[in-house]
């Protein structure tokens, strides 16, 4: 069995306002209540009673009013997974700034690598030359 309860938030608590067996009617009426701004909050809770398990499950199918919107702000949805790519590619001012910084850091490390390889190469050549010419002077 299915029921759609309209709840209104008044006096600091939720209260059952009315009950319907039709989803469309319940949501329509809840929207009407919401538009009247008579209550701080309004919601529609769908209740399903499973006769086999004797259990009732409930879920909110409509939220309106200040209370529900405030609750949504306090408990926002978890952040979406980030799209692949650098911060700069994802866009946004902060992302772009982070991207530029990352690029500068990467450039510095490349320069250091080239200098280090050059030093090793020159050192190696110097060592070879020394081995080649040193016996003549000994």
């Amino acid at each position, binding site marked *: 069995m299915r029921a759609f309860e309209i709840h209104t938030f008044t006096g600091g608590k939720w209260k059952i*306002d*009315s*009950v319907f*067996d039709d989803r469309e009617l319940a949501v*329509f009426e809840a929207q009407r209540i919401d538009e009247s701004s008579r209550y701080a909050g309004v919601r529609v809770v769908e209740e399903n009673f499973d006769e086999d398990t004797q259990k009732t499950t409930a879920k909110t199918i409509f939220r309106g009013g200040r209370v529900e919107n405030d609750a949504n702000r306090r408990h926002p949805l978890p952040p979406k997974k980030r799209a692949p790519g650098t911060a700069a590619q994802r866009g946004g001012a902060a992302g772009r700034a982070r991207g530029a910084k990352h690029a500068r850091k990467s450039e510095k490390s490349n320069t250091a690598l080239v200098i280090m390889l050059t030093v090793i190469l020159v050192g190696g050549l110097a060592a070879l030359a020394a081995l080649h010419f040193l016996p003549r002077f000994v």
Partner: protein
Amino acid sequence: MDSLTDATERPGTGEELPKGMERRLVLRLLSYWRGLSEDGVLPSFAAIDPSAMKDMWESCFVLDAVGHEADPVFRTVGAAFAEHSPIDLIDRRVSEARANTLVHASVSYIHEVICKGVPISRGGEFYKADGVKVLYRSIVLPMSDDGETISGLLCAANCREVTEG
């Protein structure tokens, strides 16, 4: 449940509703009831003005629950609603409503309203004694003399027959 037609929603009136007015009887009556209910206090029968709800009154009926909580009594019955009962309902108990009628379907959940103290609307279908399928929609609203204890119920219902091919 199929939607009731526009024509079915205004039985007995024979008049077009003003433009922009809610078409569904149950929502119009609920809106009227809300207008009488201040700050969550249940409205009293004394506040009802049939002349202010001509478009609905013919489909309404009133149940008296004082001293008859378990089996309320019909006190007022609108002409359009009365057409769906083979017997005169005035001063009869709801348990006397004949099965497979709009009256029976409309009073089948009044105890839930008395228990919860809030309006409940139900619809559905039933088959009349002659086998004709009927779609209906009803609403039961709690009323009170002292604003708290339920003393009666304001109800309304309408329906339409469905020819099954």
